[in-house]
């Protein structure tokens, strides 16, 4: 497989990726946020498809998801909003969401629509690697979509290697044992984990997420990884300062 994610990670180290929830703060903000992020110099974007019961998320993303659903966001609506996004956005775009809405849309139909729009990958936290391999891998490959798996500090080396072998694009390194949510610093345990995984010399690039909130955490996370993802801290900034001030947030990271 070779799409925009692979190309980006070949050409650039220390990728800055931003997660936001589609349909928040306002239903029609989705494409505007994407364009602002691109023009602010962000390298990659994760578009959150909101879910009613986001098990792996802390209060900030839970809250943005609830509001997005209240605003009227649906799977179909998101696809409609993204229809023309590739006219002027060329950075990698990933959809991150829970499995049930995709299952209800139809996994194949979902992937087909993503490919038609120009989505490069999916992150589905509650679709385990075993189920993916047994039932969905062929579909993702047919449509050229990278399925991105998570690892955590508790993931065994054997399992990290298995995930490395199945992964396309990058491996999503969850920074610590926690749900999503901003942290202001990383401790020794995190740095040891970053070092330990770096020493495995995996095939797939690694991007760190969960708990990245500012320049300091971004720099620590990317010392030994290929990039980092900011979610909750960005959503908080959107909540308080609005879509107009996206550039300020990105400028403060690097």
């Amino acid at each position, binding site marked *: 497989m070779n799409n925009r994610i692979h190309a980006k990670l070949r050409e650039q180290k220390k990728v800055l990726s931003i997660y936001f929830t589609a349909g928040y703060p306002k239903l029609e903000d989705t494409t505007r946020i994407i364009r602002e992020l691109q023009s602010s110099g962000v390298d990659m974007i994760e578009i959150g498809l909101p*879910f*009613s*019961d986001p*098990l*792996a998320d*802390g209060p900030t993303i*839970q809250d943005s998801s*609830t509001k997005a*659903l209240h605003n009227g966001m*649906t*799977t*179909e609506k998101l696809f409609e909003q993204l229809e023309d996004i590739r006219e002027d956005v060329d950075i990698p775009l990933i959809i991150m969401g*829970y*499995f*049930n*809405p*995709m*299952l*209800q*849309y139809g996994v194949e139909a979902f992937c087909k629509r993503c490919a038609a729009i120009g989505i490069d990958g999916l992150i589905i*936290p*509650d*679709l*385990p690697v075993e*189920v993916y391999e047994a039932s969905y891998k062929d579909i993702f490959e047919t449509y050229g979509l990278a399925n991105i*798996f*998570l*690892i*955590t500090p*508790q*993931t*065994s080396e054997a*399992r990290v290697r298995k995930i490395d072998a199945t992964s396309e694009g990058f491996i999503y390194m*969850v920074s610590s*044992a*926690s*749900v999503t949510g901003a942290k202001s610093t990383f401790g020794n345990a995190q740095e040891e984990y970053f070092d330990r995984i770096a020493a495995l010399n995996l095939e797939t690039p690694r991007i760190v997420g969960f708990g990245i909130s500012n320049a300091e955490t971004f720099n620590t996370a990317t010392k030994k990884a290929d990039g980092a993802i900011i979610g909750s801290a960005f959503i908080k900034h959107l909540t308080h300062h609005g879509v107009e001030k996206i550039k300020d947030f990105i400028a403060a990271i690097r």
Partner: protein
Amino acid sequence: MSYHVDQNGYYGNFGGAFIPEMLYPNVEELRTNYLQIMNDPSFKKDFDQLLKDYVGRPTPLYFAKRLSEKYGTRIYFKREDLNHTGAHKVNNTIGQILLARKLGKKRIIAETGAGQHGVATATVCALMGMQCVVYMGEIDIARQAPNVARMKMLGAEVRPALSGSRTLKDATNEAIRDWINNPLDTHYIIGSAIGPHPYPDMVTRFQSVISEEIRKQLLEKEGRDYPDHVVACIGGGSNAAGSYYHFLDDTRVNIIAVEAAGKGIDSGESAATSALGREGIIHGCKTLLMQTDDGQITEPYSISAGLDYPGVGPMHAHLYASKRGEFISVTDDDAMNAGLELTRLEGIIPAIETAHALAVPQQRPFKKDEVVVINLSGRGDKDLNTYIDHFNL
């Protein structure tokens, strides 16, 4: 056809473990160890001993003479309400805390709807000297106040779930998030036959003592070790799974599952999952699920906090899909009336969850000679305020 879990954690098309990677080590540790631990003779001995001396098992199988006369059939009650803490929930918490101890865990978390599972968890934590945190929806904290007080007195911390419908589903979300945040020292005691494999099977096995005893007791009382019908209410489905377990493959036994219709199946305020749900994923499990066309989980409604859940355990989804089970739904009003009727005819105040199962003889006639066992899953002390308000007593 098999009604038991298969090698991969499925009941037919339902079950599995759709969990985020953060939970994988914990769930995998359970999956690889639970059967071995449960089959270990020393574990069995401890479990049986506690069920006998601490919980008060076996619970009676009681022939309800006046109710049987009224409905022209032979109704027996399996008296899980007489367990210590007042419901079947403790069968599972005793089992799981012994298992948690074997796995070296120090801290216990649980979700609760009616508070019965929370109380049963807080109780075994007190007994074993373990730290206990119980998540409970804000709405349920208000409607089940006596159980909140009991949990606090038992030394548990009750944390309100403030998201979504602020009921059982949301309490379960919060408990799962806690487990993600505390992966090493914590065991999550799920209170029903739900969640990722191996939970539905593990909880079912701990609850299967109910049908094991029914068999022996019926043999004494009726001269045969099976009923014609076994009836239980379904929230997530643990008391039902335990009541059915030893009869699953016995086709002489009709299995009746009772769901909460709330204000009526078509009212928009209901928790009748088999009628209103489609296949989907909730709390790590593929099962029947109430959801929007778009796959968002719907907020259910029932007057009873313990049945106010938008899914059912995967065993029950399979019993429904395979038509092995007969599914009936009972409204708030019919359940409340059946609860009062039992109180007045037999002198037993049932939990409102249980009262749903008690409404079955009014909705569905049984023959005169048929033996009907209804699982009396819990007592109604926690529900007195709801009864009193409902009937202006």
